[in-house]
C-alpha cells in the first residue's frame, strides 16, 4: 500500500532524514518511534505532502508521489495531529470543520455524512455545533479523527495522536483507532515517542535515531526483547522498567 524508499529531507545545512525506507501492507499499521529530533515526524510530513522539499521515492497504492500532490491524493491520505488544541480552527464549529473536506471534494449529502461521522467516533450529536474550546481534549481528538475520515481515505497518518491526552482518554482513542481500522480497512502510519502505544497498535515498528531508521522489527520481537540495535534495546528497557515497578 505504502512504500518509502531512501527518503531524505534537508532543512538548510542539516539533513533531518537520512535515507529512510519502509513498506506498509494494505490494512496494516506501521509505527515509527524515536526521540525528539530523530526525524520521525519529518518522515510523516513528507509523506503527507505538507513538506514538499524531499528526495527519494514514495508510493501510495502503486502511484509514485510527486512533491506537489493533487486533490485526489488528499482524498486517499489524511492525517491526525498531535495537539488536538492546535489542529482545530478555533473559530469554526465541529460542523464546519467536518463539512470542509466535503466542500473541497464536492461530496454531497453533508448533513447525513456529518451525523454519521460523529456517531462513528462516538461523539454525541449535541457536540456538532460546538466550538473547539467547548470540548475536552479527547473529544477534540475525536473530531480531528472524524475530519480525517470525512473524505473516506484509505490511509491515515497519525502524528502522536494520543500524547497530549490523559491516559484514560488515550485508551479510548487507541480503541477507536483500532475499531476504525477494522471496520474500514484503513492503513495507518503512526508516529510516537511511546513504545508501548506504538506496539499496541502496530504489528511492525521502525525505530529512528538521528534521522536514520536504525531498526525495523515486529511487535512480537520487540516484546520478546529480540532487538538488534542498542537504541531499540535502550528504549525497550526504559519502557518495561516502569511497567514492572
Amino acid at each position, binding site marked *: 500500500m505504502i512504500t518509502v524508499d531512501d527518503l531524505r529531507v534537508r532543512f538548510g545545512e542539516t539533513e533531518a532524514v537520512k535515507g529512510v525506507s519502509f513498506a506498509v501492507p494494505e490494512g496494516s499499521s506501521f509505527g515509527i518511534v524515536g526521540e525528539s529530533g530523530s526525524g520521525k515526524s519529518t518522515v510523516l510530513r513528507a509523506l*503527507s*505532502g*505538507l513538506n514538499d522539499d524531499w528526495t527519494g521515492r514514495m508510493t501510495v497504492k502503486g502511484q509514485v508521489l510527486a512533491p506537489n*500532490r*493533487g*486533490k*485526489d*491524493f*488528499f*482524498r486517499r*491520505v*489524511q*492525517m491526525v*495531529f*498531535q*495537539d488536538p488544541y*492546535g*489542529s*482545530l*480552527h*478555533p*473559530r469554526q*464549529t465541529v*460542523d*464546519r470543520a467536518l463539512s*470542509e*473536506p466535503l466542500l*473541497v*471534494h464536492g461530496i454531497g449529502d453533508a448533513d447525513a455524512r456529518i451525523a454519521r461521522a460523529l456517531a462513528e467516533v462516538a461523539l454525541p450529536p*449535541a*457536540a456538532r*455545533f*460546538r*466550538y473547539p474550546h*467547548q470540548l475536552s481534549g479527547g473529544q477534540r481528538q475525536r473530531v*480531528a479523527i472524524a*475530519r480525517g475520515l470525512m*473524505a473516506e481515505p484509505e490511509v491515515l497518518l497519525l502524528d502522536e495522536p494520543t500524547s497530549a491526552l490523559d491516559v484514560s482518554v488515550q485508551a479510548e482513542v487507541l480503541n477507536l483507532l483500532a475499531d476504525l481500522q477494522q471496520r474500514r480497512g484503513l492503513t495507518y502510519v503512526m508516529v510516537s515517542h511511546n513504545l508501548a502505544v506504538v506496539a499496541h497498535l502496530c504489528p511492525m515498528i521502525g525505530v529512528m535515531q538521528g534521522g536514520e531508521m536504525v531498526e525495523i522489527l515486529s511487535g512480537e520481537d520487540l516484546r520478546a526483547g529480540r532487538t538488534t540495535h542498542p537504541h531499540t534495546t535502550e528504549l525497550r528497557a526504559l519502557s518495561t522498567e516502569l511497567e514492572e515497578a
Partner: protein
Amino acid sequence: MSTTTLRDWLLTDTPSSRAQAAWGRRYRLWCDFRANPLAMAGLIVTVLLIAVSLLAPWLATHDPGAQNLANRLARPSAAHWLGTDELGRDIYSRVLYGGRVTLGMVVAVVVLVAPLGLAVGCIAGYVGGVADRVLMRVTDVFLAFPRLILALAFVAAIKPGVTSAIAAIALTAWPPYARLARAETMMIRSSDYIAAVRLTGAAKARIILRHVAPMCLGSLIVRVTLDMSSIILTAASLGFLGMGAQPPSPEWGAMIATARRFILDQWWVPTIPGIAIFVASLAFNLLGDGLRDVLDPKQR
C-alpha cells in the same frame, strides 16, 4: 420571560445549528465587552455621534450654509446654541452637518482600506516567496512617506475635495493593515489547523479566504477602530490645510482652519469643532481598546 429564554438559547452549550452557535459566540463576546465600562462609554458615544450626524437635518436649528453677516461671531445664546462663525452661520448646526462629512470620510476610508490591507497582508503572508517580497516592498514604499505629506501631494495633484481627500487618506492608511495582517498570517500559517485544511486538498485562495482571513479579522478590526481617530485627525488636517472638504461644506477640520484667527477673542468658534474632533477620537480609541480586550486577548 422571553429574554431569559433568548439568553439561554444563546448561552447553551449544545447549540443545534450553525447560526445558533455563531450567535452564541457573538453574545459571549458582547457580554465580555459589556463588562468594560470605558469601552461601553466609547461605544455609546460613537453610536450617538453617528446617530446625531445622520439625524442632522432634524436636529439642526439652522441651515448650516445660511449666512447672516449682521450676526457674525455671536456668543452662544438661545437662538444660536453654540454661537455663530465669521459668516454668521450657526455653529451648532454646522457641527452636526460636519459630523456627516468627517465621519463619512472616516467610514469611506475604512471601507476602502481594511479589505485592501487584509487582502495584501494575507496573500503576502500565506503565499510567501516572490509575491510576499513584491507586496511588502510596495507596502514599505507607502510607509516610508510621511502620511500627511503623501496625502497632500495626492490631493494637490488632483483637485481638492472630499473624494480626493478620502482617496488620499486611503492611499496612505492601508500599509499598516497589510503589515498587521501579514504578521498574523505568518503565525496562523504554521499552525496545525491550517496544515489540516491544506491536507483536505483545498486551494490556496480558499484557505486564505475562509480560514486565514477570518483569524486576522479580530486584530484588524481593533486596529481600525484605534486608527479611526488618526483618520479623523488626518481628514481634519487636510481640511485645515484647505485640501479636504471645500467651503462652504462644514467639515470639522476646515471649520477650525477658517476660525483660527478668532481663537483669542471668540474662542468658541474654533473650540467647538475641536471638541467634536476630540470627543470622536477619544470615543473611537476607547471602543478600540475595549474591542482589543475582547477580540484579541493575547495583545492585552
